[in-house]
C-alpha cells in the first residue's frame, strides 16, 4: 500500500516527537491538536485524527518499544491536511493482513486499533516485517 497519489503534495510545517514513555502520549496528542487547529480543521475531524493518532502511538509504545512520530502539514491542490508518520524499531508485525482484521489482537486488546484507525482517516499506509520495525503513515484532510 502506498501513499502516492497522482497529484503533488507539498509539505508546509513539520515537527518530530520522540515517544518513549506513557507521559509522552499526552504531549504528542496536544501537539497534533495544535497542528490540526492551525489549519482550521473542524472538531469532528480533529477528534478522528487525534483518536487515530492515539491508537497508533499506543501501539508504538506497547509493541514497538517507543519510536518517533513526524507531524506534517500537507497541501494538495485546494485541500490542506495533517500527515502523521509513526516509525519504530520494534519487533515488527508478522502478518499485516491479519493485523488489519477487526478483532485480531496479539495483546489481549479489542483488536480494533489498526483497522479502526484506517476507517478514521483518509489515507493509511503500513510497512512492517519481523525484525525490521514498523512504519505507519496516516493522512487526514481538513475537508472530507
Amino acid at each position: 500500500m502506498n501513499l502516492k497519489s497522482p497529484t503533488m503534495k507539498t509539505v508546509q510545517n513539520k515537527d518530530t516527537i520522540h515517544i518513549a514513555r506513557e507521559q509522552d502520549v499526552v504531549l504528542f496528542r496536544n501537539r497534533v491538536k495544535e497542528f490540526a487547529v492551525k489549519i482550521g480543521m473542524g472538531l469532528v475531524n480533529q477528534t478522528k485524527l487525534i483518536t487515530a493518532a492515539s491508537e497508533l502511538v499506543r501501539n508504538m509504545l506497547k509493541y514497538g518499544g517507543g519510536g518517533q512520530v513526524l507531524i506534517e502539514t500537507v497541501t494538495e491542490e485546494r485541500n490542506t491536511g495533517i500527515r502523521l508518520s509513526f516509525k519504530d524499531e520494534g519487533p515488527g508485525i508478522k502478518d499485516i493482513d491479519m493485523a488489519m482484521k477487526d478483532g485480531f489482537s496479539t495483546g489481549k486488546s479489542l483488536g480494533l486499533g489498526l483497522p479502526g484507525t484506517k476507517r478514521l482517516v483518509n489515507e493509511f499506509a503500513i510497512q512492517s516485517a519481523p525484525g525490521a520495525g514498523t512504519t505507519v503513515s496516516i493522512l487526514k484532510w481538513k475537508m472530507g
Partner: protein
Amino acid sequence: MKTDVAKLFQKKRRQILEYWMTKQLADESLREDLMSNDDLREQSNELLDALIESITGENISDTATAELENVKEILSGISISRARQGFSPRETGMYVFSLKDSLIHILREELKGSPDELYQASMKVNRLMDGLAVVTFETFIKGREEVILRQTDEITEISTPVIRVWDGILALPIIGTLDSARTQVVMENLLQEIVESGSTIAILDISGVPAVDSLVAQHLIKTVSATRLMGAECIISGIRPEIAQTVVHLGIDLSNIITKATLAHALKFAFSTMRLSVNRIAKEKTAE
C-alpha cells in the same frame, strides 16, 4: 616568573571579598528586600573561602575535579536557598559572575606587566567561574523539575469523586485521560461505593474525557462489566457528537451498554427505571 594563581588568590582573599561586595552592592539587581547586606556578605565569604581553599595550580579550570565538589555543594545550597527566597536564576547567576569579575580584577592588578600570563590566567579563571555559574542554573532547573514532578503526582491522584445523586443512584464525572491506572482507581471507588450505598445504578459521565480510543473504550467496558457483576447497572453519559463518530468508525461495540448524551438524560432514565417521577408542586389554594 610564573605566578601561582591559587596562591595569589589566597594572599589577596580580603581584597577579593571587598571588591566582590562592592560590585554586588552597586549592582542594580541587588535584592535587599530578599537578603540583608550582612547576610549577603556572610554568604559571599563562605563561598569565597571554600573556593580559595579548593583551587590549586592544576585544577583551576576543571570544575569536574573532586576538590571542587565542596564548592559545588555550597554553591548548590546557595542556589536552592536563593530560589526558595525568590531570587531569579539570573540574579543568582550574577552573584557568581560578579565574583568572576573581582577575581579577574585582582589578576589584572598583579599581572599588569605580563599581558600573556594575564591572558592565560584570566582564561583559566573564566572557565572555572563559568562552570560554577552553570552549577547554579542546573540546581535551579532541578528544583523546578521537582515541583513539576510533584504536581504531576498530584494531578494523577485527583481521584474521581463518586457522587450519590439520589437514593440508589451514583454519578461519576470522569475528567481527563482514562488510562489503566485511573481506571483502576475509578473501579475501586465505584464498586466500594456500590456496596456501601446499596446503589443499583451508576452513571459514568465522560464529557470530560478528551478522546475515546480503543484503550479507553476497553476500560469503560471493563468497568461496566464489573459493575454488572455486583448487581448494578452502568449508564454512560456525556457522549459528544465527535466521540460518537469516532467510536463508530473504530468499530467499538457498545451496543449492550446504555448510553445517553447528557447526565440529565441519564438521570431521567435512571428515575424511570426505578419507577420514580419528578412532578411540579401544585399551586396551593389560599384560604378565604
